[in-house]
């Protein structure tokens, strides 16, 4: 076992790992941060997306030892300091951007990565960016609407088909 240290949501953390320990397992089992979900475990569904040094990655397809020392942000780091929902989370609630909620952590983290590089995306750009995040409730319209709203754009004309 090898102790791996990194910064997660601004906090210095460490946990024991094997070579094969995935970042998703490090977060969920090592740190008990179970907000990061493992859906497919084959890097297709995107439920496990977290940020590593500011970039979105699928944490089920990264080894914990490969990102030792990195600055990681998970869904638990998306709320405001006072515990209230962050802008993107609040928009998902306001616009019913989740049904069962399983994909939501990954959706929020991908949306945050998109808005960091493109603060006012078009609807097409949102849909394109989220193509690696699968919602099996098929609630895409309201997810896209929530991301558009989180970017501060008027979403009243977007249909909730």
């Amino acid at each position: 076992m090898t102790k791996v240290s990194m910064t997660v949501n601004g906090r210095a953390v460490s946990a024991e790992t094997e070579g094969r320990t995935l970042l998703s397992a490090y977060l969920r089992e090592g740190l008990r941060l179970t907000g990061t979900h493992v859906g497919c475990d084959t890097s297709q569904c995107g439920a496990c997306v977290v940020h590593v040094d500011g970039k979105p990655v699928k944490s089920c397809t990264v080894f914990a030892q490969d990102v030792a020392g990195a600055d990681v942000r998970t869904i638990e780091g998306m709320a405001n300091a006072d515990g209230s929902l962050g802008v993107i989370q609040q928009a998902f609630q306001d616009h019913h951007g989740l049904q069962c909620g399983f994909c939501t952590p990954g959706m929020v983290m991908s949306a945050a990565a998109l808005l960091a590089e493109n603060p006012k995306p078009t609807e097409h750009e949102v849909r394109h960016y989220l193509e690696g995040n699968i919602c099996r409730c098929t609630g895409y319209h309201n997810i896209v609407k929530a991301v558009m709203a989180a970017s501060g754009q008027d979403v009243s004309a977007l249909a909730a088909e």
Partner: protein
Amino acid sequence: MHNFDFVKPASIADAVKAMGHDGAQALSGGQTLIPTMKQRLAAPTVLVSLTGISEMKGVCMGEGGLHIGAATPHAVVAAEAGAVYPALAALAAGIGDPAVRSKGTIGGSLANNDPAACYPSAVLASGATVVTNRRKIAADDYFQGMFTTALDEGEIITEVVFPIPQKAAYVKFNQPASRFALTGVFVAKYPGGVRVAVTGASASGVFRWAEAEAALSANFAAGAIAGLTVDASGMIGDLHGTQAYRANLVKVLTGRAVTAAG
């Protein structure tokens, strides 16, 4: 997944040394290798991460054209190669999805040589040079069939050098679930002639379409290939598309790529 020892060297020399262990396997972005290991189709005893080697990262102009470090993620190529080689940047921007592009690298893609991967078509159509810790390999010698390359045991790709074409474009027909190329065509026009490389279609992996290259070198217009046909016999046929369908896609996408290149 079977367990292994993980090492992350900081230099090419240390990586080469680590690759000398029995059962050692290089790990770049891991976007193919890690799923493969989960299925126990690969079970290295030592995994040598190449992502901590700064001399293998980055995009810059240099002798022979655009130099891209082998451990450079697709997202960085998409963001930084556009000014000098827009078709290559566009190809990188279309691989997988944003999270895959944060991790997956050009060196990993080329070392794996998936028959439906995007990068091999750019490397072959550009007549690029694959640089390893031991030698420089011309693209025409590098690709040797599905998942097969000229790399020797323990050899590590360090960078890829792309001559800059006068015109180029890559057009991919997505397999919508995997976002690999059901078929993809990269067309590049150089002073010495046009090169056309096709990925996703052939059971032998990426290949050059010689008849189209001759026709387009004489007349760089989509209509120049109108009379050509592609032999379907060597194509991949599966539930996503028959051999004939892929053979037709090669021609259609080549025409579209020529038009897109302008």
